[in-house]
């Protein structure tokens, strides 16, 4: 009974108070046929020491390779204070702030978060978070279809340069509501969305256009003209952005003439460790006039009985616990703890710190690309400017190269051919501010060796083949 406090004597007293002889009697309303199966195959409980040893072994087993994979999850420095404070019991073990007076800490923090995120996106309002970037994009699509009163269609334009797993998630979530996703090709030379193809849809009825910035290839999209095409055709613009990049790049609120209508994305670069893909958090910002179409929790500032400032959940008439089947979403929890971390992270870095971090990522990527393209047979695949990720074309199949690099404890990047068959031998590499010059050099040296040995291997095979 690792966490149950009852003594034998208390158990006896409690059963006596209830008026039963044994705990078993408390289950007497449950039909006997359903009761008391044994839990075969679930072993005996472990002490904290035993489970610690087991977990340490498992964590050690996966090593700590030198990582150049990005593809939606980025290895950034997180200030020690972020998780020291986020895991304080008062944040870690509180629940959704339904009792506002007993939750002012979480509520004020969420209000500060909403302010910071709206500022970063240059948007009017932010919600208190969603699950992750991919599901936030799905919620943005559903919201756009609801909010675009001028459109009769349930069709949304989504560039192929959006993260493949995001596109897959959106499909899963919106499919059953009759929403269609129309994919837009990317330009084979630049790697950004094909503007001609986009303009080819002019005059058609869509609820929204999704604009990723940067896109999955790390390439910067022509966000201004894309948002302008959307506005001219009565489509809402959904910005899908890396929040850290927005410390440097033009934020969604400033795109085109009037700005994006919805901005969303994954908050992982703001204080969440890689942690095998989660928990991260999704963010979603919009214009004031669309706020009632927004999914997820919102915190507002108000006054108490004595006129003091206080914070409370608000505009709950949008939500499932009030509206049930007519809610804007089924979402109940958000990712409160991750938002706690993100708020601390943004407060500790500030605009200057985030901009420096983003610039350092960008500079590191430049150095990495320079080093790797200096190797024989490696070229940049796309011509357009990139943020902290870039696509390289290798002289051979990527999968084998990555396997050999992994054997040397280097995770060399993401094999794009898995999702884009036309991007043969193409590798997506990432360098954040936390990779040092030595790390970059180590990658280049090892990659050179791997390419050389595989070339030799290939020759050897050919020789044998000739025989």
């Amino acid at each position: 009974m690792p966490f149950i406090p009852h003594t034998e004597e208390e158990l006896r007293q409690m059963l006596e108070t209830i008026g039963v002889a044994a705990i078993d009697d408390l289950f007497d309303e449950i039909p006997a046929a359903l009761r008391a199966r044994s839990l075969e195959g679930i072993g005996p409980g472990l002490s904290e020491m035993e489970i610690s040893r087991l977990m340490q072994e498992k964590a050690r087993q996966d090593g700590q390779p030198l990582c150049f994979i990005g593809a939606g999850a980025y290895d950034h420095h997180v200030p020690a204070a972020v998780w020291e404070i986020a895991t304080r019991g008062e944040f870690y073990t509180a629940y959704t702030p339904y009792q506002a007076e007993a939750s002012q800490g979480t509520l004020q923090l969420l209000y500060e978060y909403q302010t910071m995120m709206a500022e970063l996106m240059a948007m009017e309002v932010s919600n208190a978070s969603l699950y992750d970037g991919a599901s936030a994009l799905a919620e943005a699509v559903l919201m756009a279809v609801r909010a675009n009163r001028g459109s009769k269609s349930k069709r949304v334009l989504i560039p192929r340069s959006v993260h493949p797993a995001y596109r897959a998630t959106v499909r899963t979530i919106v499919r059953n509501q009759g929403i269609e996703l129309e994919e837009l090709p990317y330009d084979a030379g630049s790697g950004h969305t094909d503007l001609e193809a986009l303009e080819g849809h002019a005059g058609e009825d869509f609820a929204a256009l999704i604009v990723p910035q940067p896109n999955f290839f790390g390439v910067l999209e022509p966000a201004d003209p894309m948002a302008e095409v959307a506005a001219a055709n009565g489509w809402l613009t959904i910005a899908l952005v890396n929040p850290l990049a927005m410390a440097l790049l033009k934020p969604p609120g400033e795109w085109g003439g009037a700005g994006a209508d919805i901005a969303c994305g994954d908050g992982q670069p703001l204080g969440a460790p890689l942690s095998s893909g989660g928990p991260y958090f999704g963010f979603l910002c919009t214009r004031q006039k669309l706020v009632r179409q927004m999914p997820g929790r919102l915190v507002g500032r108000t006054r108490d009985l004595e006129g003091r400032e206080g914070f409370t959940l608000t505009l709950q008439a949008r939500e499932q616990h009030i509206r049930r089947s007519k809610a804007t979403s089924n979402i109940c929890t958000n990712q409160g703890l991750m938002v706690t971390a993100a708020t601390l992270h943004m407060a500790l870095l500030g605009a200057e710190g985030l901009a420096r971090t983003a610039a350092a990522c960008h500079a590191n990527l430049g150095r990495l690309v320079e080093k790797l393209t200096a190797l024989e047979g490696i070229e940049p695949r796309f011509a357009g400017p990139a943020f902290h990720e870039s696509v390289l074309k290798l002289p051979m199949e990527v999968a084998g190269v990555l396997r050999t690099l992994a054997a040397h404890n280097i995770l060399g990047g993401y094999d794009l051919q898995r999702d884009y068959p036309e991007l043969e031998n193409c590798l997506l590499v990432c360098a954040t501010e936390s990779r040092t010059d030595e790390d970059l050099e180590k990658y280049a040296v090892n990659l050179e060796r791997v390419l050389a040995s595989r070339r030799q291997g290939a020759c050897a095979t050919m020789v044998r083949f000739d025989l």
Partner: protein
Amino acid sequence: MLIFQHSRPGRRARAQAPKEKAGLDAIPEQFLRRSRPRLPEVSELQAVRHYTRLSQKNFSIDTQFYPLGSCTMKYNPRGANRLAMLPGFLARHPLAPESHSQGFLSAMHELQEILAKVTGMAAVSLAPMAGAQGEFAGVAMIRAYHQARGDGGRTEILVPDAAHGTNPASAVMCGYRVREIPTLAEGDVDLEALRRALGPQTAGIMLTNPSTLGVFERHIATIAEMVHEAGGLLYYDGANLNAILGRVRPGDMGFDVIHVNLHKTFSTPHGGGGPGAGPVGVGERLAPYLPVPLVDFDGHDYRLLTEKERPESIGRLSAFAGNAGVLLRAYVYAKMLGAEGMRRVADYSTLNANYLMKRLRAAGFTPAYPSRRATHEFIITLKQEAKELGVNAMDFAKRLLDLGMHAPTTYFPLLVPECFLIEPTETEAKETLDAFVEAMVRIREEAREAPEKVKGAPWTLPVRRLDDVRAAREPDLKWEPPA
């Protein structure tokens, strides 16, 4: 005071960002941001002190009794947090190759197995990131199953009127119409109404058992038979699994698909409203539709199965593999409990709830279902107190906060007037439950003698009652600096 009000131009936490300012020459002007976002400019100490002080304005399990019904606010073991945050787990990239993932994947595979065994299901996917996403996945699987059989006329999901709001909202997200089924006076589903509602249009029914009324649905076997007979499937909302963990398995009750709230039953932290995790389990016939990724073990290596290997899957619910860090915490907790510990969760959460119900009843409070056993939670109705003393459930709730206890869930389920849904959980000691009874009795005394004390509560917290109407009418959702 807001963090922004501590801000001074040019102040920074200098240890936290790269020292050198890197250049941006490769990025053309038109892509760049023109003005800085107004984020706080504070020192590290200022940020640490500000957020530490904010944390102290929260109630939490670590600091207060938190008997919030239907939320299972039990002790979140510190060991689970420490071990999920081992550097190796935090640093693992979600797309790391299998060669660098065997430790993590082995834990996830074992968690899938443990959850399947304790719920009596054939297979489990850990992908859903919250209970509501588990519900969505479950209903989407029901839909995929009917569609694969060419059974396209099933357009309706049945939901008891006592259900969580997420149930109907999830069904609608999957493109279904929702029909509510009434509940009888003793808390069971109205079988006659159910019989009338069932038909060729029925895709399935979503049930929580024990229900949100804090009682076990006694006719579950009959319900399962009726729904299956009509060609529908049964969805189990795992919100209340804590009450029967290791005692009764949803699979044995006839459910075809379930979700488990790991942040309730498996004690992962609620974190001020997330992150949660809502794994789904299914019987054999729904197994092909499970959301990806799944963890597979071929006897030698662990690997992730994706859309490629699982073509009939309803698909992906997140960019990667769900809330992995939450899953690790649940794994640690499950391993610490073992089979015997799991059963004791049900035993002692049920013991605590029945004891507390009995003592409140003896003190003159009114259980909503007096003829029934409590499960891991129960409802009292303060209808009589409201009528006689003019203080309602909200007043009681706010006054409890003054007395150092978090309030139970109020005004849910909607069926019971002036209700408290009370879930003490198994990790609370007898003296805490006794103190709760004393607090309730004291509040009733105060309501008789000095009702303003109760109606005006709370008095001792950072704020008194807040103006929710103002918050909704003039939404102030973002701080603006004074002009």
